[in-house]
Every structure is written in structure tokens, then in C-alpha cells.
């Protein structure tokens, strides 16, 4: 077993165990902290895929912004649901079954894929310059880039509108 394989297995184990804890632990705040560990594991895997840029972006966006916002929302709504009442619904067995079927299907597709046993391509250091240019290039990815920008603006406006305190007197 080589060095990268050991690192991959460790990171994958941490990611997967943390993800399972996210969906099973009864205390919601702990689930949020496990989510952070899982996201950090994904960031390590991104580094293994030779994309340090996306790994750092993953930490900056997911851990610093999304996970912290989720935990903040948990603390704001703490009174609504105590940690002692059941956290999973009556259909959890069916849900687990459905998830297992989906996973089995995905694994079957992976086993059928001809490229599954391939090793990585030789040189793949992503040039940040090239990425930046491609995002605003008319022949490149300007359409997804602009759509993402519009989506973010819409989300910004929508979030403010939805969460705004209702005006007094109506």
C-alpha cells in the first residue's frame, strides 16, 4: 500500500464516518460539528485530486460560511425541538432501504464503467489564470458563470425578503 492510498483511505474513512454521524446523532448541534469534520475530509480529498484551489474554497465557503450559518440557525431555533424527542421519523427503515438501493445502483454503475480502474492523468495542476480567463471567456464558461451570479443575487434578495421581520401592524 502506497502513501497516497493510505491518505485516501484515512480521509475517506473520516469523511464517511462523520457523514454517518451527521445523519444519526440525536443532538443536532453535534450533527453540525460532525458535518464540519466531513466537509474537512472532502477538502483533503480535493487536495489529493491536485486541486488545492478548490480545497481552500471548500474550507472558505463550506466550513466558514455554510456550516457556521447552519449551527447559528440551530441555536436560534433551539426551543422548537428538544434533543430528547425522536430525531428520525417513522419511515426511517424505508428511507434506509431506499438509500441502500440507490447506493447499490450507483456501485453497480461504477463497476460497469470501463474507466473505473484508471489512474490519474499525468499533469493536471489547474492554472488559476486559465480558470479565471475561462470563466469570463465568451467561448468558455461565461454562461454558467453569469447564471451562478444571477442565482446568488436572487438568493441574497430572497433570503432577506423571507427572513425579514414582518412589519408591525399588519
Amino acid at each position, binding site marked *: 500500500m502506497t502513501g497516497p492510498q493510505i491518505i485516501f483511505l484515512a480521509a475517506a474513512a473520516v469523511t464517511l464516518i462523520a457523514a454517518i454521524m451527521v445523519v444519526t446523532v440525536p443532538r443536532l*448541534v453535534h450533527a453540525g460539528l460532525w458535518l464540519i469534520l466531513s466537509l474537512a475530509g472532502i477538502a483533503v480529498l480535493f487536495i489529493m485530486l491536485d486541486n488545492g484551489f478548490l480545497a481552500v474554497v471548500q474550507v472558505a465557503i463550506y466550513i466558514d460560511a455554510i456550516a457556521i450559518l447552519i*449551527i447559528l440557525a440551530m441555536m436560534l431555533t433551539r426551543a422548537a425541538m428538544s434533543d430528547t424527542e425522536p430525531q428520525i421519523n417513522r419511515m426511517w427503515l424505508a428511507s434506509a432501504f431506499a438509500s441502500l438501493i440507490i447506493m447499490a445502483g450507483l456501485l453497480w454503475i461504477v463497476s460497469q464503467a470501463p474507466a473505473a480502474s484508471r489512474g490519474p492523468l499525468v499533469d493536471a495542476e489547474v492554472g488559476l489564470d486559465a480558470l479565471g480567463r475561462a470563466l469570463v471567456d465568451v467561448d468558455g464558461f461565461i454562461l454558467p458563470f453569469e447564471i451562478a451570479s444571477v442565482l446568488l443575487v436572487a438568493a441574497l434578495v430572497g433570503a432577506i425578503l423571507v427572513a425579514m421581520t414582518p412589519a408591525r401592524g399588519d
Partner: protein
Amino acid sequence: MSDPFTTIDQFIKNLLIGLGLEAEVTEVALNIVGAVVLGLLVGATAIILIWAERKLVARIQDRLGPNRVGPYGILQTIADGLKLVTKEVLIPQGADRYVFIMAPLIVVTGVIGIWAVMPLAPGLIGSDINVGLLYVIAVGAIGTLGIMMAGMSSNNKYALLGAFRTVAQMLSYTVPMILALLIPVMLAGSMGMSTIVEAQGSAWFIVLAPLAAIIFFISSIAEVGRAPFDLLEAESEIVAGFHIEYSGIAFGMFFVGEFIHAFTIAALFSVIFLGGWQGPAVESFPLLGLFYFILKTWFMYFVVIWVRSTLPRIRIDQINAFNWKFMTPLALVVFMVTAILDKLAVEAGFNRAAVLLAANAIIVLGTLFLLRAYATSQRRRLEVTERPQVQRSEAASD
């Protein structure tokens, strides 16, 4: 003359390989040793930092400061540290044990992690990744997580209030900070920290982008949570904020973490805007670079202490209004103007520094004009509503 740090690195590597170690193992081992040494050095700096800060604040407030333990009280921090270590770490009843213990560790880790990409001297940098500045933002914000964990695991309402304030303040001040940091990235054409320093050979970025420097300085002080932005531990309102339940070494870690964080933003400011290790004769003597870097960092740290001990604490609504109504729009304007003018000026062959300085001056004048108009209208409104009271008090004095 070749660079001394590479020489030392090569020497140790060759020595270890000569002792019969494999090349790859040596590489990994040296990296680990380097990380430990850097982390310990930064941690040890805190001893001097705390002493210097207490002494300086005391002098500014016309006191003497620590002067009993050792010459000029320089051993006071060590005495305090020993006291903290020997005290028991109390875990309050109903607290979330593991989260409670992890919180100070995460705060300190997040701060020391920034030093991994800090260019200390030419060729002396922990890891010269090409997304260094993004890494600084990403790792620096992990401290917020630690503070929030401390607040929610303490089972104390003041700690929770402190954590809420922290998250509100830190998340919002990240926005102008990132916008301000984009300007040096744009000017240097890279996010790598050593490239940013090298790009400041002719002109420091504080000359090219003074407004961005000021925005970064203010928002990073808010990010550290120092006066005038120290609402997260406002003693008069929420006792001590998030670390109210901590004692012993756990409290000591929060304390040290805060001082190192302040020192780190001083170092970041000197790297990004004051040219880092750039200075006279640095090409021929790379060791001078380390000296310049430390000098600039201590100067910025002095400014941080100066601000802290001079300005009063501001209210939470003022903090958010200041950020969202003033800093963020200003940062956006500066960012867009710099982006357009930098491109146009370089293409038209103008002097880059002159154009950018003029643009910054115009933005400052415009901002001051707008603020004055706003203040005048506010004052008029207040005068209209307050006039009857004024007349009544005059009548009473008669």
C-alpha cells in the same frame, strides 16, 4: 551569494540522507519539524506580546504596568502563565464536555495555521501555495467556529450571547475584508503570498491602494474582536462573553490566541500592504528581510494597541450599521474603481501609482462629502425634534 535558508535546508537534508534515511521520509520529517518550530516560535512570541501590550497600554493610560517580576516586569507573563497552568480546568455542569475542551484548541490552531503561508524573508516561507491569500481567509475564519463552540457548549447564557455577537460581527466583517484583499491580489496578479511581496518591490501597496489598506485594517481589527470592536467580551454587558466559563490553561489558550491573532493581522498587514520583507539592500543580504518584516510587524502591532487603548467601545447596532452601510459599499466602490483604472492606466501608459493615488483621493473626498451631507441632514432632524426640550430646560433655569 545564494540564499542562506535554502542552504541550511539543503544542509540538513543532505545530513539526514547521509545518515541513511530515505529522501521522501526526510522531506516529510523536515516539513513536520519546520511546522512545529514555526508554531512554537509564534506561540512563544505571545510571551513578549502580552508583556509589550500591557506595558504600552499602561503607559498610554499613565500607569506603570507590570514592573515587579524581572527587569521591567518582563517575566510577568511567564509568572501568569505558570499560575494558569497550575489552576484546575473547571468544566461547568451541563456543559458539552468534548466540544468545551476542543473550542480553545480550534481557536489557537486557526490562528497559528495562518503562519504557514507567511513569507518571513526571501525564500523563507512555510508553504508557498498559489492560493495563499485565500488560505489565510479560510483558515483565519476557523477561529469563529472555535468561539461559537465555546459559547454553545458552556451552558451559560452570557457565553451564548457572546458567541452570537461574535458570529454576527465576524461573518459580516469578512465581506469588506475579502473585498479589500482582492485589490492587492489584482495589483500583484496572484494570490501567492511571496508573489504579492515580490510585486511590491517598486511601490508598496499602501501607496497604490491606501483605502483598501485602511478597510482591511479596520475589518481585521473587528475580526480579532479588539477594542473598539470588542463587543464579544464586553465586560460591562455580558461579563466576559464566550470564555466566561473557562479557567486554567483552557482560558490561557483563548487569551494567548487573541494576542497571537492581533499580532498575525499586524504581520498580514505588513506583508500585504507594507511590502513584507522588502527594504533596502535585501537582495544581497536576505537575512535583512527577516529584520524588516519583524520591524514592520511590530510597528503595525503598536498601531493596533494604540487604536485599542484610544477608542471607546461601540454599540452592536453601530457595528453592523458601520459595516453594511459604510465599509462594504466603500470597499465595493474602491474595488471597482481600482480594477478599471489599473487596467486602463497600464494600457494607456500612465504612471500607475499616480493614477491610483488620485482615484483614492477622489473617493475619499466623495465619501467625506456624502458623510457630511448625511450628518447635516441628521443634525437638522435632531434639532427639529429636540428644540422644544431645549426651550423647556432654558425656561426651567430661568
